[in-house]
């Protein structure tokens, strides 16, 4: 057991523990915050595994953007502040399939790698990864940029039902079926795609 192993064990334990809390907690907001802990521990794992750039991108995109988006969604869907009892459906099948997948993969990987050791490769800095991306992986990179653009357009079209709708102009606005209550939530939802990117 070297120092890297101890760090990997500790960070892995934190990540799995926070993951358990994400899928079992009764509080919606706390699930998002436990997800931050889990993703942060994974970023630490990436650092120990000498993947510097991936670790910082993980912190930037996952902790900085994805979790914030999830928390926005929790707020926009008017989640209750306290504990809610209707978050789960009763399910032995879920435990069976999830546990089966997790333990099956664990057995496979433990059987494949046992207690072997490897030496860490040179660190994946931005310079080395950039060389790889822009020399060997240019085409997937460009395809991904097209995918991001289409996802952006798709999210906007989904959130604005008055775009691309047949009928007289203004019909989409007038016929909006908001959630019961005042129209604030619907207005927030409408203004959300602009602030998303």
């Amino acid at each position, binding site marked *: 057991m070297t120092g890297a192993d101890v760090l990997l064990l500790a960070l*892995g334990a934190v990540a799995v523990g926070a*993951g358990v809390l994400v899928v079992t907690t009764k509080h919606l907001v706390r699930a998002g915050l436990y997800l931050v802990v889990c993703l942060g521990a994974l970023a630490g794992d990436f650092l120990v595994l000498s993947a510097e750039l991936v670790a910082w991108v993980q912190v930037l*995109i996952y902790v900085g953007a994805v979790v914030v988006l999830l928390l926005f969604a929790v707020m926009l869907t008017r989640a209750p502040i306290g504990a809610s009892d*209707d978050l789960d*459906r009763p399910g032995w099948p879920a435990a069976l399939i999830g546990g089966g997948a997790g333990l099956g993969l664990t057995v496979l990987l433990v059987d494949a790698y046992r207690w072997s050791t*490897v030496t*860490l490769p040179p660190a994946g800095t931005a310079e080395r990864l950039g060389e790889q991306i822009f020399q060997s992986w240019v085409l997937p990179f460009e395809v991904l940029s097209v995918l991001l653009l289409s996802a952006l357009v798709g999210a906007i079209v*989904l959130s604005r039902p008055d775009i691309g709708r047949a009928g007289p102009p203004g019909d989409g606005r007038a016929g*909006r079926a908001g959630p019961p209550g005042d129209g604030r939530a619907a207005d927030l939802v409408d203004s959300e795609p602009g602030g998303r990117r």
Partner: protein
Amino acid sequence: MRPVIPYVTAALLFGLGVYGVLRRRNAVLVLMSVELMLNAVNLILVTADTTARAVLPHSGQVFALFVIVLAAAEIGVGLAIVLQLYRLRATVAVDDVPLTEPSPPVGGREPAVLDSEAGR
């Protein structure tokens, strides 16, 4: 460095993600569980980059970056769908969503309009 430790972490996280997707009713929580699974895959890719000496160096980390981009796109579209669902049905419980819609698709928003007006 013993690669079995991050591999086992990733396998357990993936199992937790599968459990969460099947168990949770709230669509936002389902998306969080999907993020857990995607991160488990990222951890596998980064660990494989250290254990397997590929022809192209750092391929695993490049793939992990690609997966992170895919996850960002997925969460954007997914949350747009969830918010639209909430606007239509005033609920985000995934098992309240009827998979078979009996009425013809007149625009997609008409049943909710009728529902909300009947409730008033």
